[in-house]
């Protein structure tokens, strides 16, 4: 009987001790949860022009030469963005055999977002470089159009559909 009571007492104290330690280990414990998040950025290239349409009118002639005076337009702005490397902006007309001369040039490129190529004569529908060296940048430039004609070209109206493209350099 004595041993029986002794065993009961021992089991009681063991249970009590275990209960005590489990309570203290849980009390005051801060909880946390983890989450994995992946943020992926792909290459993106975008270009836009501020003017959807413009008209160049040649209606004056030079008194000295007798040739028509050039018509100039610098109202349009070209804007672009790329987060890729070694891009360029090209320009092309859909007019394969233009009658009157049209030239285009990129002016006042912002920051270091590219380098203007030399002035381009749009005398066929070949794609030509307008701005080169565009890398991880956003940019803006003025588009300068110059239209001219010779007396021998006569009179008339000509339409160009100009395409600007940001592409791999």
């Amino acid at each position, binding site marked *: 009987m004595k041993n029986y009571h002794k065993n009961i007492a021992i089991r009681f104290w063991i249970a009590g001790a275990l209960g005590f330690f489990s309570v203290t280990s849980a009390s005051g414990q801060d909880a946390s949860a983890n989450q994995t998040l*992946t943020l*992926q950025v792909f290459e993106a290239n975008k*270009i836009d022009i501020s003017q959807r349409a413009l008209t160049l009118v040649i209606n004056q002639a030079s008194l000295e030469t007798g040739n028509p005076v050039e018509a100039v337009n610098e109202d349009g702005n070209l804007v672009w963005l790329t*987060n890729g490397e070694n891009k360029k902006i090209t320009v092309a007309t859909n007019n394969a055999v233009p009658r009157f001369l049209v030239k285009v040039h990129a002016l006042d490129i912002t920051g270091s977002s590219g380098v203007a190529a030399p002035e381009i004569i749009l005398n066929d529908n070949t794609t030509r470089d307008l701005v080169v060296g565009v890398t*991880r940048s*956003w940019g803006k430039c003025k588009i300068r159009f110059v239209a001219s004609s010779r007396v021998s070209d006569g009179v008339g109206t000509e339409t160009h559909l100009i395409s600007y493209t940001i592409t791999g350099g």
Partner: protein
Amino acid sequence: MTRSLTSFRKSTALKKSLMPLALFVVLIAFPRSVNAQVYGSRTHTVTVNVATINNLAVSAGSTSLTIGAANVTAGQNLMGPVVNTATSLLWGINSSLKKVTVRTNLVAPKFTLKVLAVAPTQGTASAEVTLNTTDKDFLINLGRSSGTCTLQYTGTALASTGTGTDSHTLTFSIVVQ
């Protein structure tokens, strides 16, 4: 005059027969006194101790954001924002005035990631947090409650930074406010 043996036996037998009856009467008359017989007693103390419990979980272990051509505007350096509200945070707290903080393990992320607690069912959402390795308040004024909120992640990038991937391990923690 001596009593005869027969009469003695009769009286003894009578006593014996009457004994159960008497006992029965006592039991009927004094039931409590019979049931209350105590042969010994012991006492012990029982203590109920409820510990501080904080539970926190996210509805999904991983999520993602993608920035591409659809999220950019020509002429601007900023790409995005893109937003993810696909996951939520759940908690259970049985003590008063706690808050939830958030941090990332990424020391130098290439792109910007922000997080905001949207529509918490308990507590107050802190202002949108730009994530770095420092714990920042995400949800405050949490008392004894269980609740949930939507995790709104917003990602942005700069074109000048280029392309790439940031992999974050975000840690949300319940701490004393």
